């Protein structure tokens, strides 16, 4: 009988053949120790990859609204309408205080420095990349928050009950800009001058960052004088006017270093004969693109793709039930000059106030700066081989409009038998989300590849953070501010001739308005417009809370102070009057989408984002930002 007992004991023995602690110790399947992590260059790159991924952009292709704020577009998604019905932004908007990211970059630099397993060549470059990313984030902080505590070493709380030794005050705004510039100088020698490297730090990226940072600092020094309320006595906000020239000179030198080829041979992208296609290609042509300097890159079938095209491509013919969200505003569209370099409203009516009829809806936009159709999809243009179908309705001879509530809806027209389409498959239908409620869609960053609108595939169009055209414009602005308009005209003309503008600017043509305008149209939807408005202290002027009407939108085009508090649109209609010469032609009406009921006011307290109460509570040395 005893033999049975052994059978009984077997399971208990199986259970107890390991000690309790052995039984409880399980191995993690996705955690590396610090020694393993800094023991091989591949893993160091893996950590660096995360630091690159956490780079802060103001706008990005992964978050479509962020690229298209400040009324350069209407957001055609019902959940976003509220942005066009309120009066502006809270003080906390755009705030960032990611010292966790800074700590990890500091830890990365310290641990890598201490590692003996990485050879010096790799180590030098990795360290420079880490410092580039850290400087980039301090640049982000100073742009949004002003001067911040400058933490360059990882710290640890000792659980002593007294954390005062961890309290650091805000540096001045200038000191942070100076830090960004000095870091650029310190690391540039350690980075490659290779124009084929776009997604990692290079000499070109460092110089571009330095030029942009110095230009921003210079303009805050100069234009901050117009808004003395936007400053703090300790210099945490505001840069002394006396330093403007120094910063402008730094900016010009850094930009010229790129232009002169010190960082490799960058140039404007000029590969396609159609200049609009050429401009659009800057943002998606990833092979031998000489213009892109530093990008966030994506790759199909890698796990890193984005849905910008899904969210924004024309709804008609889209791969999915998606698209059409960013609707560029008429305010932006008409800012594009004629090819002769003149500011003109769109020819919607003749001098007598009668509508002008067009056989092709696209004709309205003919003869404009090629960047218009490189940036915006206008009625009648093509995307992915299909003509967008944007028209708002059929207008009868007596002025009655027949339209529909659904995209491409069909109805009967008086005097005709059978149903015909009475509204475009892309709208516009007022209030109907995902239709072109301003009459336009965005083209910049749209991926023309088949499948880019599929949720399962998505897009790998990159997001360009620094590109050569901006470097030229930075150089032009710095030169202009340093009293060298001729040099500025030269740089501007390079950018403008790529856009097909036939008249060249002379030194006399270069004004502050011109600088502002050129950046507005060239860099639209790139996340830079906002910081331009801030550093020139123009934001509270152009976003003053006053509504705009259909009349005043067509005047004063090209002025730096032109109001842009609401997005307007222009809609094509089909004229229906059998027998009439204009039957079947299109004409246009300027409209304010009826979901736009608020108008934006940028308050002085919006210039620098509010520092959260918890941050102030936790560190009494932090002073608040002004006007909040």
């Amino acid at each position, binding site marked *: 009988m005893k033999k049975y007992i052994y059978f009984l004991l077997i399971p208990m023995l199986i259970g*107890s053949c390991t000690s309790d602690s052995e039984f409880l110790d399980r191995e993690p399947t996705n*955690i590396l120790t610090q020694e393993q992590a800094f023991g091989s260059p591949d893993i160091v*790159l*893996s950590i660096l990859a995360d630091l690159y991924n956490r780079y802060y952009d103001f706008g990005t292709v992964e978050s479509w609204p962020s690229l298209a704020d400040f009324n350069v577009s209407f957001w055609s998604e019902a959940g976003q309408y509220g942005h066009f019905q309120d009066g502006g932004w809270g003080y906390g908007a755009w705030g960032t205080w990611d010292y966790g990211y800074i700590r990890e970059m500091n830890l990365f630099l310290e641990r890598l420095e201490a590692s003996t397993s990485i050879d010096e060549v790799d180590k030098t470059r990795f360290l420079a990349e880490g410092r580039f990313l850290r400087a980039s984030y301090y640049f982000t902080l100073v742009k949004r928050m002003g001067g911040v505590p400058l933490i360059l070493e990882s710290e640890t709380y000792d659980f002593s009950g007294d954390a005062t030794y*961890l309290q650091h005050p805000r540096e001045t705004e200038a000191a942070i800009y100076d830090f960004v510039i000095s870091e650029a100088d310190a690391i540039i020698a350690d980075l490659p001058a290779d124009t084929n490297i776009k997604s990692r730090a290079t000499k070109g990226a460092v110089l571009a960052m330095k030029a942009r940072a110095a230009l921003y600092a210079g303009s805050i020094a100069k234009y901050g004088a117009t808004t003395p309320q936007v400053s703090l006595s300790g210099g945490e906000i505001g840069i002394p006017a006396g330093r403007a020239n120094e910063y402008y000179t730094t900016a010009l030198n850094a930009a010229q270093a790129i232009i002169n080829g010190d960082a490799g041979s960058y140039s404007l992208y000029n590969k396609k004969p159609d200049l609009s296609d050429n401009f659009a290609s800057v943002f998606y042509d990833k092979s031998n693109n000489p213009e892109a300097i530093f990008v966030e890159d994506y*790759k199909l079938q890698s796990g890193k793709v984005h849905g910008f095209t899904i969210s924004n491509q024309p709804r008609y*013919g889209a791969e999915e039930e998606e698209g059409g969200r960013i609707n560029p505003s008429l305010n932006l569209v008409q800012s594009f000059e004629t090819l002769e370099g003149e500011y003109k409203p769109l020819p919607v009516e003749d001098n007598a106030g009668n509508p002008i009829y067009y056989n092709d809806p696209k004709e309205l936009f003919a003869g404009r700066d090629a960047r218009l159709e490189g940036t915006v999809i206008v009625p009648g243009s093509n995307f992915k081989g299909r003509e967008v179908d944007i028209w708002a309705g059929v207008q009868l001879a007596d002025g009655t409009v027949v339209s529909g509530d659904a995209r491409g809806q069909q109805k009967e027209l008086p005097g005709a038998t059978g149903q015909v389409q009475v509204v475009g*498959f892309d709208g516009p239908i007022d209030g109907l989300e995902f239709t072109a409620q301003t009459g336009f869609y965005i083209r910049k960053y749209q991926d023309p590849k088949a499948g880019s609108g599929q949720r399962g595939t998505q897009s790998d169009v990159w997001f360009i953070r620094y590109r050569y055209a901006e470097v030229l414009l930075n150089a032009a602005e710095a030169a202009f501010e340093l009293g060298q308009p001729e040099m500025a005209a030269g740089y501007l003309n390079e950018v403008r001739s790529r856009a097909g503008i036939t008249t060249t600017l002379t030194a006399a043509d270069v004004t502050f308005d011109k600088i502002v305008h050129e950046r507005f149209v060239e860099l639209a939807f790139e996340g830079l417009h906002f910081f331009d408005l801030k550093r020139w202290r123009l934001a509270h002027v152009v976003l003053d809370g006053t509504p705009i009407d259909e009349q005043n939108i067509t005047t004063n085009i090209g002025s730096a102070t032109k109001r842009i508090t609401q997005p307007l649109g222009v809609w094509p209609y089909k004229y229906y009057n059998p027998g009439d010469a204009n039957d079947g032609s299109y004409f246009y009406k300027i409209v304010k989408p009826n979901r736009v009921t608020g108008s934006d006011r940028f308050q002085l307290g919006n210039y620098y984002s509010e520092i959260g109460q918890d941050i102030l509570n936790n*560190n009494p040395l932090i002073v608040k930002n002004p006007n909040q």
Partner: protein
Amino acid sequence: MGTTLLGLIKQIRFPVFAVIMCLLFSQQSFAQEDIKITGSVTTAGQYAEPLPYITIIVKGTTRGTTTDFDGNFEITAPSNAILAFSYVGFKTKEVAVDGQSEINVQLEEDIAGLDEVVVTGYSTQDKKSITGAISTVSAEDLEKVHGGSTVSSGLAGKIPGVSFRMNDGRPGASASIQIRNMGTPLYVIDGIQQDEGQFNNISPNDIASISVLKDASAAIYGVRAANGVVVVTTKRGKRGTRNAVNVNAYVGWQNWSRFPETVNDSYEWMRGKAEAEINQFGSTAITQEELEKYRVGEEPGYQSFNWKDFIIQKNAPLSNINISASGGSENINYYLSATQLKQESVLGDEFTFERSNIQSNVDADITDRLKVGVQINGRIETRKNPGIPGADDYWLPRFAILRNRPFERPYANDNPEYLNDIGHNETNWALHNFEIGGYAEDIWRVLQTNFSGEYELPFIEGLKVKGMYSYYIADRVLNGHEYTYDAYTYHPEDDSYEATGGSSNPWRERRTRKVLRNIYQGQMQYKRKFGDHSLEALFMIERQEARFQEQWVHAVPKTNTLPLIYFSDTDAYDDLDDEEARIGYIGRISYNYRDKYYIEASARRDASWKFTPQKRVGYFPSISAGWRITEEPFIKDLLGDDSVLDNFKIRGSYGVLGDDDIGIGAFDYLTGYNYNQGVAILDGNAVIASRDKGQPITNISWFKSKITDIGADFYMFNSKLSGSVDYFYRKRTGLRGRKYDILIPNELGYGLPDENVNSDAQYGIEGALSYSGEIGEVSFSVSGNASLSRSKFLESYKPRFDNSYQRYRASGEDRYNTIFWGYTATGQFQSQEEIDNYPVDIDGRGNSTLLPGDIIYKDVNGDKRIDGYDETPIGYNNYNPLVNFGLSLYVAYKGIDFTADFSGASGYSWNQNWEQRWAYQNDGALNKIFLDRWHHADPLDPTSEWIPGKYPALRYNDGGHSNYNKNSTFWLHNVTYLRARTLEIGYSLPQNILDKIKIQKARVYVNGYNLFSLDNLKDFGVDPEISDDNGLQYPQNKFINVGVNLSI
């Protein structure tokens, strides 16, 4: 039976038979000098009826037999033996043989079941000796519930303190069960800890009983038992009974209990839109002529279409058949069962759930002292439905009802060959089928085997050692493919169809998951009676380990037709391999004196792999005591002989329970780098990113639940009336929180790690009462139960508040949880004049957006504007009701029986929102509730007079308006419901007919489940067990079933 089940049986057949054979051959017989005894067993009372299948055991041996059809038996036993006669529902009777060769016995029905055996922690106890708060549900109760496919649906309203909430009624769905609102309980099936899914998907037919341990009595299960324990015991064959084959089968038909209704009339929709536009913008493009065309509804584009009728099929079938065989000889007993269930959805026969279960429980005595058992439980669950975009394939079809507008039609030109391009085609139901949309199939294959052995040690009487090994393997394979498709626009001018929409995005995925679990238990049990003293002791070691492996792959195939996934089409692959391990040492000792005083103490030492090695171990003691005061001589004297009070017991328990589910990950105590934190594209290559794990969490350990329970049980009028009451209080300390008294600058870059510092409480009362009796030939029973359980946050570590308002608004200190904050609606504006003169800015725009009928909010702080400072507590923000109650009625007359069960709840809120709050959300359909609204007498004339209604005047998809963007008493509803659960009438064939057809038992029944509900949500078309603010959840079904129970 499905072929897959046969396949499964084939796979496991050999080892099972090997074990059974081995056990059979090891039987031995014991021939001794005995006498032969014959006799009969009948019911007690005037009309004695023979009792078949009564178990007769020779006490102190394993020898036994059962009575035959006519209640006769024959057994051999020593002449000085004692025979024990027992059967469920009857009081056990012991008769001394005393040399008699004929013994006739009458058994009394045991109405309240004081000696009923209840399964508790790792053991069983008589009901009278229980000192904890433990309630049970019997197999009979469960068998009458035909309200879905999972076990949980059988618990509604049955047990005091158990809340039942079924907010999804799709095929295969389960209800969420909570004990005293403490959170998800632990499930223990036949002594083995299991997850909720395993509990829900065993076949209800195989369950012998369910016990719910609500207080410190759960402490014996230690880790993860802090929310109470549901203990399930499966059926076993009885020793010495003849083989019985039971067939239980039913078929039912399901319909949705409720779902929101929309206006299926294009004219109403368009008229509302015209009103809305005039209300919002002062004008509309919709003309009277247009409206007239919609009203007439004949021209294409102006007709009406009823999407709900198109989508929802009536009377979706559900069927279940269970066949079981059980029986036992002197040394072996067995229960074998197979069940096949199929449930379709009201969305049609392509939306299905199927399950095949087998259960095989065999126990055998190898020798007098050595017993072994094998339990095998297996199942295959298959969920199948068309492939539909979105994570939940049942969502879009429901959303379509609220999204699709009445003038939209599923087919272009009504030609079923061409899917119509309605502009939001994903909600076009015409594509949601295997043909056009694709498929999704999710299969779980689960096998659970327990091997147990028990040995009575020869040298100490009452001492046993036991061992159990349990192996569990679950295998999931999910395959989904959403096809590409075209949607068309019809051109009447040339009678052509143009593909103008659709999807070119195929979605192909496969998810596989394997769960492997080993549980090892070793036990020593001691049980002995010394005169008036009974002593029981248990010592046990339990080790549990589990491993979870999962892979998910996604592809974008080029074709809709081929099912395999190829490497070059794939774009995502996720891999997971996790383990867990826990060890428990358990000790328990219980003592009673003359079945009068009971005391029990237990302790458990648990260790979990989740914590840092220094913090792994937790100790969880508990103690409970009971006093049957009716056993006290002086009480007996006091009550006298005619006392109606048969039994009264006071009991109390206190215990500390642990939980390692504190919200940290398994390796949060380590430093280092987490690999695979996204991908960066560097130099064109995908580089897998790694991120620093941050500060290790090394000071976190178990949080502790201290549960106190004081209760009483009583039996009166010969146990016809019985009841119990309980008060309970669970305090949890060591909840995860942070110490805020040291302010650490954010610029440090990390916060202080969490610690075990917060505390909360859950407390309440519950009670149950039941009465059974007979009037003439009618026997009946009535029972009811009710419970209240609330939770309160007690304290955090030195909380900080910026100011007194923040304290009021954000503090949880010593405050009830589940507070819903919102505005108080004091009424609706009656005229434009009232709006113009109203002193408080309601909409933040100087009241410029307001119209008569709009909601007036109370300006609580008197600052003349309505903002967040005007919010106060207005209801509950929980969906788990604070109050639960149940009612049951059972009546039997001759062969006819009738059962009615009700359950209800109160103390929770529904926040009417989204489609239920503002009209035309998503440009969609118009909810019928908005027909009762403020509107102009002439919809197109804004100067015409206002006609009042319940809801504010329409706006078109304007959720930002002050009527709709605030949670208020206008939209929040505190809900109470009472709903019919089971209503069943059955008829059992009388004995004389059964005898003729040689069947032991035959019963047919008609059963209804969820047939009606009394509550305050009916007007909104939402089920009272609501959780979705917009009422869009898949509601519970109403069932009508017919079935049969046969014993052969």
